[in-house]
């Protein structure tokens, strides 16, 4: 491990090359462009009743948040919110379980694995609206009513699952098989190995899959558009708002959805930290 120490002594490594400053500037500009517009709408959502869609900011109040959740003309934001959260939770659970299993399956080659792999890639890149129409037509032909918890759920899974499995691939490629073999040598059954060794080791990866599943579902639009049935999910509600509403309540909605997203990330990261903490002191006891 002497290598990192000698690195600093290499003459070529001393000082920052000009490319560092150029790229740091690029990075700063990218982050500014990434956050700038969003902060604009967060700020503008706190205007008072005179507020408009552009700067300058007029007054300071929570008027547009109240407007968002009470006005009839902005549609059923509460219901859509509720449905989106429920749908995202169901999608997350299924995505985590199914991706984990598929990830385990893909560790060894089996007959037809390439077909499964490319089906997955196909499902990932298929135009969402086309797939949505197909699912809508399929349900129509089968005489099943489309709804957010059947057709829309399936439509979203056809997009979150491939993502989840790809993340599992990335996570599992760093998994050391020696741990599993050690567990097996010590007499653990296949299920015990998975439950006591594989799942705990991969836990942060599984949480990453869960986060992916949740946000992809919570934000999914094209696949849900034709499959949600009569009741809207939140992105569909936002979409219809962008066509009808030209007031800062649109921005207020942006602020609220962002806060919800951040709460979810906070909880997930907190869970990771908690798992890591619990893991620490327990290890020596074995």
């Amino acid at each position, binding site marked *: 491990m002497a290598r990192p120490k000698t690195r600093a002594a290499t003459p070529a490594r001393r000082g920052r090359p000009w490319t560092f400053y150029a790229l740091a500037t690029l990075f700063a500009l990218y982050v500014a462009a990434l956050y700038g517009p969003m902060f604009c*709408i967060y700020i503008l959502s706190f205007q008072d009743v005179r507020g408009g869609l552009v700067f300058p900011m007029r007054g300071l109040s929570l008027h547009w948040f109240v407007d968002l959740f009470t006005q009839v003309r902005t549609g059923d934001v509460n219901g859509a919110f509720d449905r989106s959260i429920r749908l995202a939770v169901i999608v997350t659970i299924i995505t985590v379980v199914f991706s984990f299993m598929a990830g385990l399956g893909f560790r060894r080659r089996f007959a037809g694995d390439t077909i499964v792999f490319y089906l997955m890639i196909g499902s990932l890149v298929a135009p969402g609206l086309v797939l949505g129409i197909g699912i809508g*037509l399929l349900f129509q032909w089968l005489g099943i009513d489309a709804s957010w918890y059947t057709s829309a759920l399936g439509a979203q899974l056809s997009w979150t699952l491939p993502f989840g499995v790809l993340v599992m691939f990335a996570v599992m490629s760093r998994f050391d098989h020696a741990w599993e073999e050690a567990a097996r040598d010590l007499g653990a059954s296949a299920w015990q190995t998975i439950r006591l060794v594989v799942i705990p080791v991969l836990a942060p990866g599984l949480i990453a899959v869960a986060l992916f599943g949740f946000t992809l579902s919570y934000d999914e639009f094209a696949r849900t558009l034709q499959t949600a049935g009569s009741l809207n999910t939140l992105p569909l509600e936002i979409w219809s708002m962008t066509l009808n509403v030209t007031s800062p309540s649109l921005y207020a909605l942006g602020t609220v959805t962002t806060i919800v997203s951040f709460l979810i990330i906070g909880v997930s990261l907190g869970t990771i930290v908690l798992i890591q903490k619990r893991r620490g002191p327990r290890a020596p006891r074995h």
Partner: protein
Amino acid sequence: MKLRRNLTGWLYVSPLMLVLLPFFVAPLLVVAAASFFETDGFGGLLPNFTLQNYVDVLSSGLTFNLYLATVKFTFFTWFFTLIIGFFVAYFLVFHVRNQLLAIGLFLLCTVPFWTSNIIRMISWIPLLGKEGLINSALLATGLIHEPLEILLYSSVSVVIAYVHQLTIFMIVPIFNSMARIDKRVVEAALDAGASRFDIMRLIIVPMAKSGIALGSIFVISIVMGDFFVVKVMSGGGSASVVGAFYEDIGVLQYPTAAASAVLLTLVLVAVIALILRTVDIRREITR
């Protein structure tokens, strides 16, 4: 033994297949079937085999223009997301020496991804609009005397919105593949007298190829399959293949919509197959 291994493999992927078969394979087959049907004009489909839908789509001059517009948006978005995504990833992996800082900055790039796409799209209105910040700033400095109309509701704003939304899809896979490059290889090349450009050309780009390919697949398929960014950000001034498809659905022209969907899918498959020819992503990902 081999049979058992195959069985176990299929057992593990069976839940995945239980979703993909009814919600990916079957709908595509339904769309393909519908593209050969006749319509009664009221949204009903008559199962009489016809090629008329394809003739209609292919003979329409509009189709060509739609593809041209879509290819234009796809190319520019791909180009800018690739350039920005590559250099951002490169900066994070090779220039930020503190690994914790690099991960923190990486997370900083991914955070906006957790908020609604539509919200992120409309968030450009206060900046790019006629009375937006950019125009106001330019007017105030005296650089221009009339607001630039081209900033919002134009092809420029469509590409800006796409780049804003999709650069992350380049950063993540490229970052991932670059992070696996052993830094000692780069140092050895430096010691051997290679220039920065040589290192970039001969080591970094080839080794980040799988990430670039994966990012390109994400970006290209999303832009080609999207319609609502074009619809909102162009203010109705531009159309795209999927946008036209959506209009067809709106007036219940399912068969022609299905035919254009099949065509789009074929084009998309061709583009992605072209990318996959250069990189075996299966091997790269599972390695």
